[in-house]
C-alpha cells in the first residue's frame, strides 16, 4: 500500500492510525459514557459495513471501530452525521459551528471537526449507583458544550462519589461528586453504624461521644461521600439539597512523568465547575501562544506553573461560600528516569505569548 495520507488530519477527524498503512479506527464520542442503547445499531452498522466487524470499548468510553479503510472515511463520516448531531449537538448543546467558541462552519458530512478535548468519561453515578452523589452524565453533557469542539486537549473524568471508580485522579481535570451532610441529633439512636462505616469506607471522621450518646464529626477531613447518610437506619444524616464537587487536577499516565492528580477545588458548586471550565480555552491558548499542540492540559499547567493556572482559570468565577481552593499544589511524579527535569536550559519549555 502506497498512499499519501496526512495522518494528523485524519486523527483530528477522530480516526486513529493503525499498524496497517491506510487502515484506521474510528472513535465515537459518548459524553459521560452514557447514550441511548439505540446507538449501538450505529456502531454495529459501521463495524459491519466499513470496519472489520469488531468493536472496542475505548479506554475513554468512546465507541471504537477498527479496520476502516482510508477510502471509506467519507462514507463513514456521512453516516455519522445523525449520531454527531443527536448526541453532541442536540443532547449536549455543543455548537458544532464553532471551534474553541470561535466561528468555524461545520460540514455535517465531514465527521467530527476535531479530536481536541477528549471524550468526557463518567461512572454510572447516581442514575443507578447506591453510592453516587451526582448524575455524572448530565454533568458531562453540560461540560461537553463548553469544551467541544476545540483543538485544545483536555481529559475530564467524572466520578459520582469519592470512591472515584472512574479515576478522576488520573486525568487533567477530575470531577468527584460529593454531598455536604447535615446531622439531626434528634433522630440519632447513637447506634454508631455511621462511625463504623466511616472508619471502614471513608476517612474515620466520626466518633460516638459516650457522654451524650451522639456522634461527633471532624468536618475538616470529611470527604463528602455520604456513606453515613446511606447507612443510617433513622435518617439522622441527610444530604443537602444540592451536591458539591471536588476537582482533582493534573493527574496523568504516560511514558515520562505519570502522577496522580491533587485536589484543586473542594466543595465547589456546579456553577463554579462550569465557570472554571469556561476559562480552560483561554488558559490553554495563553500557554501555547494560541497554537494548539498535541499536548494535554496537565502539561500546560506544568509549563505555566500552578499559580499562573489558578490566576487565569478563576478569572470571573464567583466561588460559592463553601468552596476551598488549593493555594499551591505539589504533585508527586513517578520519574522513570531520575532527575528527569534536569536538562540544558535550551531544552526547557516556556509558556505564554511569544513577544
Amino acid at each position, binding site marked *: 500500500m502506497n498512499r499519501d495520507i496526512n495522518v494528523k488530519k485524519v486523527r483530528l477527524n477522530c480516526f486513529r492510525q493503525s499498524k496497517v498503512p491506510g487502515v484506521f479506527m474510528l472513535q465515537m464520542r459518548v459524553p459521560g459514557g452514557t447514550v441511548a442503547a439505540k446507538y449501538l445499531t450505529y456502531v454495529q452498522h459501521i463495524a459491519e459495513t466499513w470496519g472489520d466487524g469488531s468493536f472496542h470499548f475505548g479506554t475513554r468510553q468512546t465507541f471504537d471501530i477498527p479496520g476502516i479503510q482510508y477510502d471509506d472515511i467519507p462514507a463513514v463520516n456521512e453516516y455519522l452525521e445523525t449520531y454527531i448531531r443527536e448526541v453532541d449537538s442536540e443532547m449536549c448543546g455543543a455548537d458544532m459551528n464553532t471551534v474553541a467558541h470561535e466561528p468555524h462552519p461545520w460540514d455535517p458530512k465531514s465527521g467530527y471537526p476535531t479530536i481536541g478535548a477528549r471524550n468526557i468519561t463518567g461512572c454510572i453515578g*447516581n442514575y443507578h449507583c*447506591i453510592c*453516587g*452523589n*451526582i*448524575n455524572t452524565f448530565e454533568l458531562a453533557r453540560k461540560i461537553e458544550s463548553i469544551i467541544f469542539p476545540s483543538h485544545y486537549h483536555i481529559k475530564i473524568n467524572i466520578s459520582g462519589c469519592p470512591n472515584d471508580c472512574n479515576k478522576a485522579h488520573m486525568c487533567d481535570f477530575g470531577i468527584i*461528586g460529593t*454531598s455536604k451532610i447535615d446531622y439531626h441529633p*434528634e*433522630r*440519632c*439512636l*447513637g*447506634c454508631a*453504624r455511621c462511625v463504623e462505616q466511616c472508619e471502614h469506607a471513608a476517612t474515620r471522621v466520626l466518633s460516638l461521644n459516650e*457522654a*451524650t*450518646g451522639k456522634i461527633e464529626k471532624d468536618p475538616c477531613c470529611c470527604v463528602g461521600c*455520604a456513606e453515613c*447518610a*446511606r*447507612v*443510617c*437506619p*433513622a*435518617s439522622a444524616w*441527610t*444530604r*443537602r*439539597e*444540592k*451536591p458539591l464537587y471536588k476537582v482533582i487536577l493534573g493527574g496523568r499516565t504516560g511514558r515520562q512523568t505519570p502522577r496522580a492528580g491533587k485536589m484543586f477545588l473542594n466543595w465547589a458548586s456546579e456553577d463554579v465547575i462550569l465557570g472554571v471550565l469556561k476559562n480552560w480555552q483561554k488558559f490553554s491558548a495563553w500557554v501555547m501562544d494560541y497554537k494548539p499542540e498535541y499536548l494535554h492540559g496537565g502539561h500546560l499547567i506544568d509549563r505555566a506553573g500552578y499559580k499562573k493556572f489558578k490566576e487565569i482559570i478563576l478569572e470571573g468565577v464567583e466561588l460559592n461560600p463553601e468552596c476551598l481552593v488549593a493555594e499551591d499544589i505539589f504533585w508527586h511524579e513517578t520519574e522513570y528516569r531520575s532527575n528527569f527535569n534536569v536538562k540544558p536550559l535550551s531544552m526547557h519549555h516556556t509558556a505564554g505569548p511569544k513577544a
Partner: protein
Amino acid sequence: MSYILNTQQADKVLGALAEKYGVYAPKRFVNQGRYSATDSIRYDKVSSASEIVWQVKSDYPAKEVINPIQQAIFYFTEDEYRASKAKEQPVLIFARPCDINAQKIQAKILAGNGGFTDMYYERMRERVKFILMDCNGGDDTCFCVSMGSNTVDESDYAAAVKFSDQGMEVKVIDPELEPFFAGCDTCGFTPEFVKENELKVTVPDLSDKEVRLALKKHPMWQEFNSRCVSCGACTVACSTCTCFTTRDVIYGENPEVGERRRVTASCQIAGFDQMAGQREFRSTAGDRMRFKVLHKFHDYKARFGDRHMCVGCGRCTHRCPELISISATVNKVNAAVEEIKASMGKA
C-alpha cells in the same frame, strides 16, 4: 357532615387548624433519602394541605409523633429531679389505617401492660386525635388486609380525609372540628378502606410449643447471618415497635447535673440484649431476626390475645437496605413450620 374543598380551601382550613393544633402529617424532605437524589417522607408539622404527601406511603411511621426517636424524661441535679413538662397543645395526626391500628398496639404495650402505664406515652396520646387518611392502596410491600389492620372504627378518628389533586373531601366526626369547615360545600363522602392487597401473607400457626422450639433451631434463620446487617432500619420504620433505652446526658463537669433521655432502641442492633458480664441472648443476626419475626407474628398475640403485632404496613421491607422482605420471611417460616410438623407427624 362531609365537605368538599378545593386546594385553596384545603390550605386555608389546614392553616386555621394549625393555629389551634399541632398538625402532623407525612411531608417530603427533598434529597434526604438514603440514596442521593431521593427524598425522605416522614412526619412533621404542617400548616397547609399542599405540604401533605398523600400519594405514597411515608418512609417512617406516624408513631414518631407520639413516640419520638428521643425525648428528655427528667432533669436531675445532685439529689433532686424534675420530670420533663408535658406540652399543652392538642395534636392532630393525619394517618392511614395501619398507623392508627398501630397505636392501639403501642397503647397495649405502653399503657397498662403489667399494670403499669407509661406516663410519657399516656400524656402525649391523650392530646392526639387522628385524621384518617384514605389509603389509596399503598404499595407492593403492604399487606394490611392479611393482618386485619386495613379498617378502623369511626371512634378511632376525628375526621376522615381523601386527598386528590383537586383538593380534599372530608367527613368530620368530632364536633370540635366542625367550625373549621363552616361555609365549605357539603358532599356525601364516606371513607373507604382497602379491601385487598396485591400481597397476601398467611401467618403460621405456632400454638404448639414443640413446633415453636423446633422452629427456633431451624436452619432457615442462618440465611440472615449473611444477609442482615443488623442496622435496625426495620424497627425504626416499624409502625408498632416501642423499644427504647435510657441515656443520661451530663451537662458539664459535674456528673450529677444533667438529664435522662429515652432513645429508641432496636432488637436488631447488636448489644440490645447485653447483660452484666457481656452476656447476650441473641448474638447473631439470624437470632435477632428470629426474635423480631416471632415477636411480631406470635409472641405479642400470645400475650395480649387480640391480634398480631404486625399491622402489615410494609415499611420494614421498604426501608431494608439489604432487600429483606418481611412477607417473604413469613412465607419461609410457613414452609419451615410445615416441614417441622410433617417430621413430627403433626401435619
